[in-house]
C-alpha cells in the first residue's frame, strides 16, 4: 500500500514552511495586540522554534513536547483573545501561501489543541 504523503512533503518541506512562518511573524510583529509579546524575543530563534513546530504538525521531522511549549509561554500574559487573533492570522498566512483549506484547518487545529498550554491570562 502506498504511504500517504505528509503535508510537510506535499507543500515542499522546510523551505516552504520557513517562508510561511517568517511571513506569520512579520505580520505578528506589526500587530499592535500581539507584537508586544515579541519585544524581548530574538526573532531568528522564535522563527526557528516555530518552523520546527509547524513542520512536525505537518508530519515533518522535529517535534515539540507539551512541556516545552508550556515553558516557552509561561511568562507571557497571553489571553484567549490573543490566541484567537493568532489563529486567525495563521489561517490567513496559510491560505496566502496556497495551503488548502482542509490542511490549513489541520495546522490551526494543532495550535488550538495547545491553547491551554499557551493561554495564561
Amino acid at each position: 500500500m502506498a504511504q500517504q504523503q505528509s503535508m510537510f512533503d506535499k507543500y515542499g518541506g522546510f523551505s516552504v514552511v520557513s517562508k510561511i512562518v517568517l511571513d506569520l511573524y512579520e505580520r505578528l510583529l506589526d500587530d499592535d495586540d500581539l507584537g508586544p509579546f515579541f519585544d524581548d524575543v530574538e526573532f531568528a530563534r522564535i522563527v526557528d522554534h516555530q518552523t520546527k513546530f509547524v513542520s512536525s504538525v505537518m508530519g515533518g521531522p522535529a517535534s515539540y513536547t507539551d512541556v516545552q511549549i508550556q515553558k516557552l509561554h509561561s511568562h507571557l500574559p497571553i489571553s484567549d483573545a490573543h490566541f484567537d487573533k493568532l489563529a486567525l492570522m495563521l489561517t490567513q498566512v496559510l491560505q496566502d501561501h496556497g495551503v488548502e483549506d482542509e490542511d490549513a484547518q489541520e495546522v490551526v487545529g494543532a495550535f488550538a489543541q495547545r491553547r491551554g498550554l499557551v493561554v495564561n491570562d
Partner: protein
Amino acid sequence: MSIEAINEQLLRAIGVGVALLDTSELKFRFFNDTFKEWFAEIETGQQLRDVFPDIDTAEVIRALQETGQFTSEASFRIRRRMMTIAMTINPALEGNQKVAVLVCQNISRIKELESMIDSYSMMVERNTREIKREKEQVEKLLLNMMPRSVYEEYKTFGVVTPRTYENVAVLCLDFSGFSATVEQQDAGVIVSELNDIYTAFDRIGDQFGCERIKTVGDLYITVAGMPDPSDRSIQSVSDAAVRFVRYLENRNKSHPVDWNCRIGLAAGSVIGSVVGVQKYIYDVFGPAVADAMRLREAAGAMEIVAAADFAERFGEAHETEAAGSGALADGTAVELVRVLSGNGSLSH
C-alpha cells in the same frame, strides 16, 4: 535637473543606508532616507559613535589611514525587530575636504537564515545519528539470524538465492527429558537457562568455526563449512560437540536444573536460504541436516553419536567407541560410534 541633483536623489532612494562622514571627527554630514529610516533620531553633526556606541572610533580612523577601508557589523532594534547591518567605510574626497562614505546593507534576513540553517543542520545530523543507530540494531538482529555473507547478499539485492553447499558438517542437539523439565520448572526459568546455555554454545561454536543456524525450543543446530567452505568442518563440529558436553557437565555441578544433551553429527550437502517473506529466517536443510537429526535420536543423555565413516574423517582427535548399527535419514544402514568427550564421564 543637474547630474548632482539626480545623484543625490538616487542616493536618497536606494535601499542601502548611505551616509557621509568627515574623516577627522567622524561626524555625520549627510545620510540618505534609508539611513534616516533606520536611525530616526539622527541629526547632521552627530558623531558615528552616537549612532553605533559599540564602534571604536580610533580603530575606524586607524583602519581608514592604514588600509583605506573599515568594515564591521552592528545589530540594533528597530520597532520589535532586531536588525543587523554590514557596514563599510571608504575615504573619498569632496573638494579639499576629506570625507568618508559609510555604506550599510541590511543583512538581518541573511543572519536569520544562517541561524536557521545551523539549527536545521544540527537537527538533520541528530536524525541521521538516530537512523544510523536504528540501522545498526536491525543489522545486529539480522546478523543473529543469518551469516554475514548471506546478510550482505540480502542487503545488496534484497533477496537471498538458495544455494547448495557441499561438505558441510552439521551438529544437531536437543535435551533428553526436556518435556519433563519444562513441566517441572517455571517458564521464565527455562527460557533464562536455555538462553544462558545457547549463549555458551554460540561462544564455543564460534571458537571452533561453527555458525549457529537456529534454535527451536530445545533443538539447537550449528554448522561448519558454510557459507565459506572449510577442510576442517568435520573437525569443527566434533570439537564443538565435545566442548558442549563438557560445558554442560561442569554447569550441572553448580546449577539446580540438570541439562543432558543428545548430539548427532553428520556431514554432506545442505541447502541454505532465507525462508519466508514476512517473517523470514535463514534456514539450512538437506541430507546432512536430516542425518544429524536422525543420529541425535540414537544418542543417549550426554552422548555424541556419528556414523563410523564420519568419525574416521576427524582422525585421532577424539576417542570413539562402537555404538551398534543405525540408519541415516534415507534409510541407509550405517555403523554408529559415540564420540567421547574425554571427561571420563561417558562410562556406560
